[in-house]
């Protein structure tokens, strides 16, 4: 289709616009902003795709703002060499008319004819939508501001697909192909996971088979153990049968019985031998007893002789000691008499010394009593005086400060009076005769009078004189009064009428205090330990004077002599005492020794007596000769018994008891062993049988056979399923590979058509469309693929325009020629690129009508295409 003339009346903002003489190639329509060039495109869409009876929002949108008119559009176009005129009026009195190629349609038939001619789907009701209803025009007519977006293939896809198919043949599998691919993918994913490992039932089957094989191996092992047990059981049964057959146990029992009989015979000989040994032993004992008795008799006689000589020796020693003791006692008595004499002399000397010492002490005490009595009198007197002076001193509490304060107050008073007097009026009275003068009613003596305050002086005979001292006397007078008052108050407080009295009182007080201190020092000197201590010492000496014997006038020199004498006597006494002790000790020792010897002699006598009795008694019972005979008889009996023992021993040795014993032990052990073997075998047999019974319950053989079948079945199934799984994978891979290859083949025309245009803006680049949607997927530049959405806006609009041109080429070649309308589709393209794009548009326009709507006339002046202005 080629557009030739467009006339729009009362459509939106367009009052009346005619664009005519549109040529085959490039056509530029310039309109300023708001001039309505985009409306022109809308009018084109309306006349072709909107039903003339359309109502509602679509109809309202065609009306100029706030107007109710009859939008009308006329379009002259050419298709397959035939000229057509299309006219549609909307809203009021809607009308449609299409005429050309000798045909004419009106009303709804117009829309049907248009749909048929251009292969679009008319809208059912309401306004049309480019993607759904505009067929390829949705693709080739680009509205302002959308050129850089997706192509918006929409319902144009089918046209495009059929155009491509007309070129490369039917290459897609269509819906059915996609469904087969989806089914194969689903089947494959039933067998394989994303990493191409078995999954689901396939995997489970392999796992089950593996588990069955393992279980089978386990059972086989158990079966082998079972078989081994059965073999063992057979072995045990065989041995037991042999025991029964050979009657081994009974044979052993009989052997044991015979061995026991032989052993019994040996035992009898053994007993006889033992009896003979016993006889020998008894004879030996009797012999020993006889020998012992004989020996005892001889020993007794010898002991008696020894006792006799011991007794004699004891008596001799005792007599010797007794003599020595008598001598020691005599010496001791003599020494004791000397000692008594010395002791008496010592006592006398000591008595003399003591008496002398007492006399001296009494004399000293008497002297002390006299001295202490004087001291005490002196101290007590001084202390009484001290207490009196202290009482005086403490009677008043006057201090030097008090006197100083009084003296200060007196000075203040004196000064106040002097100042008052100095300020006062000095009046000298010289009355006549007895003329009297009275001041304030009181008579005044003559002479000088000083007045410090207002006063009335009555002069007798004269009258009254008012006196008024000069200012200030009032204050001075008050000060004098105040000082007076303070002074008097201080005196009263201290209890004195005058300052002199106070001064005297202070002096008296100080004197008393000094005297008390002096007297205190006197007391301390006379009685350094205090008066009480002095009194006690006096009392003690008085006691000493009154005690003791009468003074005998001894002298100290006599005392020393007496002491020396006493000392010497005491030394002699000590020597005598030591000597007496030694003598006594010697006598005591001799006495103790005598006692011991007495005891010993007595004991020896007793022993000898007893022994003598014992021997006599024994000899009375058995005489010494009897004992000798008995010993000889026992020696003979012993020799006879020993001969008997030797005979029995020989008989026992001849019977070979060890061999008999060994034979018995062997027979008994054999019987025990065979019995034990049979019992053990029996137990083992029962145990094996029990174990086998337990195994038998589970049916090991059945399980094994069952599992064998299962494994075989599992192997078959797994083989089949493996084949299916591989087939499923192969099918999917083959289908998807085929689809990929076909897709490349399918989109080859687009690549070929776009290549010459692309070369003009970008060497070595390529456009990749989505094989289903035909939207631009990628742009490959210098071998690097970039997603369309990732390109700059300018690049996107250039690529999109080129793609549309290429698709328009394909469509045209497939007999679906259509005009391309670009409404300011290259506004984001820089100048250099724009020039290139102009070349592309020129190249495309060689075969293709292109209508450019723009507000940028300047951009297209150099395009070399006819320009129409709205």
């Amino acid at each position, binding site marked *: 289709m080629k557009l030739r003339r467009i006339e729009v009346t009362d459509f939106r903002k367009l009052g009346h616009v005619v664009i005519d003489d549109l040529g085959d190639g490039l056509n530029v329509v310039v309109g300023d902003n708001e001039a309505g060039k985009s409306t022109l495109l809308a009018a084109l869409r309306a006349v072709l795709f909107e039903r003339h009876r359309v109502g509602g929002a679509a109809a309202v949108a065609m009306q100029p703002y706030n107007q109710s008119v009859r939008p009308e559009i006329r379009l002259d176009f050419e298709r397959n060499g035939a000229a057509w005129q299309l006219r549609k009026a909307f809203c009021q009195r809607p009308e449609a008319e299409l005429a050309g190629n000798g045909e004419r349609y009106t009303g709804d038939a117009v829309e049907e004819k248009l749909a048929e001619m251009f292969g679009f789907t008319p809208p059912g009701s309401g306004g049309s939508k480019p993607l759904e209803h505009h067929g390829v025009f949705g693709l080739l007519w680009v509205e302002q501001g959308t050129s850089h977006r997706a192509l918006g293939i929409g319902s144009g896809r089918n046209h495009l697909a059929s155009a491509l198919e007309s070129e490369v043949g*039917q290459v897609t*599998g269509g819906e059915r192909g996609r469904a*087969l691919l989806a089914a194969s993918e689903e089947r494959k994913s039933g067998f394989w996971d994303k990493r191409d490992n078995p999954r689901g039932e396939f995997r489970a089957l392999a796992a089950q088979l593996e588990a069955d094989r393992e279980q089978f191996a386990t059972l086989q092992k158990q079966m082998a153990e079972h078989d081994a047990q059965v073999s063992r*059981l057979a072995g045990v049964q065989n041995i037991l049968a042999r025991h029964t057959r050979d009657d081994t146990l009974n044979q052993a029992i009989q052997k044991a019985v015979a061995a026991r009989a032989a052993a019994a015979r040996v035992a009898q000989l053994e007993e006889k031998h033992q009896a003979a040994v016993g006889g020998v032993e008894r004879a030996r004992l009797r012999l020993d007893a006889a020998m012992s008795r004989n020996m005892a008799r001889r020993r007794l006689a010898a002991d008696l002789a020894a006792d006799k000589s011991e007794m004699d020796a004891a008596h001799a020693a005792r007599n010797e000691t007794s003599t020595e003791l008598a001598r020691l006692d005599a010496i001791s008595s003599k020494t004791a008499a000397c000692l008594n004499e010395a002791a008496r002399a010592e006592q006398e000397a000591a008595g003399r010394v003591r008496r002398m010492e007492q006399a001296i002490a009494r004399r000293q005490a008497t002297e002390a009593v006299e001295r202490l009595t004087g001291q005490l009198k002196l101290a007590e007197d001084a202390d009484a005086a001290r207490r009196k002076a202290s009482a005086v001193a403490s009677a008043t509490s006057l201090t030097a400060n008090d006197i100083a304060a009084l003296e200060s107050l007196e000075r203040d008073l004196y000064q106040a009076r002097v100042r008052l007097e100095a300020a006062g009026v000095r009046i000298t009275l010289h009355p006549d005769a007895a003329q009297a003068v009275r001041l304030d009613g009181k008579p005044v003596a003559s002479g000088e009078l000083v007045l410090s305050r207002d006063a009335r002086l009555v002069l007798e005979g004269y009258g009254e004189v008012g006196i008024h001292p000069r200012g200030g006397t009032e204050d001075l007078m008050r000060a004098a009064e105040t000082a007076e008052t303070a002074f008097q108050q201080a005196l009263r407080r201290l209890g004195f009428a005058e300052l002199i009295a106070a001064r005297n009182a202070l002096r008296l007080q100080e004197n008393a205090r000094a005297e008390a201190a002096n007297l205190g020092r006197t007391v301390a000197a006379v009685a350094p330990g205090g008066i009480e201590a002095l009194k006690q010492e006096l009392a003690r000496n008085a006691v000493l004077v009154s005690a003791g014997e009468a003074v005998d006038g001894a002298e100290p020199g006599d005392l020393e002599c007496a002491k020396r004498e006493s000392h010497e006597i005491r030394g002699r006494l000590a020597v005598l005492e030591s000597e007496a002790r030694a003598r006594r000790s010697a006598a005591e020792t001799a006495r103790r020794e005598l006692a011991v010897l007495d005891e010993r002699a007595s004991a020896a006598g007793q022993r000898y007596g007893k022994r003598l009795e014992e021997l006599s008694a024994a000899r009375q019972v058995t005489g010494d000769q009897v004992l000798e005979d008995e010993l000889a008889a026992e020696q003979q009996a012993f020799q006879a018994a020993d001969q008997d023992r030797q005979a029995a021993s020989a008989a026992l040795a001849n019977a070979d008891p060890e061999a008999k014993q060994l034979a018995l032990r062997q027979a008994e052990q054999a019987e025990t062993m065979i019995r034990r073997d049979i019992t053990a075998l029996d137990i083992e047999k029962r145990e094996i049988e029990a174990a086998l019974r337990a195994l038998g319950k589970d*049916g090991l053989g059945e399980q094994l056979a069952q599992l064998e079948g299962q494994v075989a079945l599992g192997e078959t199934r797994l083989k089949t399923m493996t084949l*299916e799984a591989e087939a499923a994978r*192969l099918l999917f891979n083959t289908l998807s590979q085929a*689809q990929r290859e076909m897709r490349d083949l399918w989109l080859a025309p687009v690549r070929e058509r776009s290549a010459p245009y692309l070369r003009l803006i970008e060497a070595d680049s390529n456009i990749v469309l989505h094989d289903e949607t035909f939207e631009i997927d990628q742009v490959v530049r210098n071998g690097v693929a970039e997603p369309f959405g990732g390109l700059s806006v300018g690049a996107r609009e250039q690529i999109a325009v080129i793609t549309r041109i290429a698709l328009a080429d394909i469509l045209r070649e497939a007999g679906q020629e259509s005009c391309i309308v670009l409404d300011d589709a290259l506004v984001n393209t820089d100048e250099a690129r724009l020039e290139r794009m102009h070349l592309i548009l020129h190249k495309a326009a060689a075969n293709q009508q292109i209508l450019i709507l723009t507000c940028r006339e300047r951009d297209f002046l150099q395009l070399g295409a006819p320009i129409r202005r709205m």
Partner: protein
Amino acid sequence: MAFRFLHTADWQIGKPFGNVPGDAGAELRAQRIATIGTIARLAATRGVDAVLVAGDAFDSNEVQDRTILRTLDALKPFSGRWIFLPGNHDAALAHSVWSRMRQMGLEANITIADKPVPIEGWDGRAVVLPGPLSRRRESLDQTEWFDAAATPEGAIRVGLAHGSVANRLPGVAEASNEIPETRAQTAGLAYLALGDWHGSLKIAPKTWYSGTPETDRHRANSSGLVHIVDLDGPDAPERVETVPVGHYQWHQLEAQLLDGTCQAALEALSSIESEAARRVVSLTLRGGVSLAERYRLGTELSSWQHRFHHLDIDDAGLFEEPTEDDLDALDSSGFVRLAVDRLKAQAGNPSNPAAASARVALRMMYVDHMSGT
């Protein structure tokens, strides 16, 4: 002096059928005991003197206690004598299903013939000579003693043994448990009742395998039977009646799909349509089919799997051969077609390790396509 007995063998009670999963396997296990009940009732009905079980009554010596007890319960309808011979599966080892059975307490009418000694009774009319296996593989002939065994004058001698008859059985190369083909003759037997071969078979003069009474494998011909044997005298010829007692019928089908369709397979299955629930079927498919036919076959097989007691399919030898129609049905152009062509190329190249996967992938795509995706 006639002697009538029921000859059976190879019950293999306790056989687990581990390769038949779920309830179907459990039911196969249970049926083996149920069939013993049928045998007991048959024995009672026919008034036989004895039932001789010629070995392998149990699948192993290590079956569960409950399996033994249930088997003993199943014997009860026949109160006559049961004579059990230990076979190679249940050999009379030191500990065996037989020793266990004895410990559980045996009914008086049950004889375990685990010793090579004559079994007498029946008022002296007959003597049974057993050749029990005391281990799983006996290298010595256990029937040798039959020849010299003394029996009362006029008694019918019946041999009872388990193993393979030398030189007679096809495909049996085992040297153990071998029985000479002339044993019946040399031992003067009126009948030698054998076990081990799972089909009913007269293998030598007076020498018979009864086969298993309940089929347990696809290869067993003439199984599911027992023998009712009448012996009129020591030298009289045996009269043998084979009586079917088995419940499940085992079929091994093989279908060659040569015309590109699955018709041959469906016809093979249809041929055993009656009593489908009693059939245990193994189907081996070979040949090539279109994807459309493969899809159809899958749907049909799924249906048959539900109808049969058990259907085991081996389609390793079945190849999908996509036709132009198949491929066009998937897509005539576009990437699907590209993928189909590639898969087809891989599938058609036997040296490509992914050939099998590619075939299955094509089938999968076809299934997806047919499922409406």
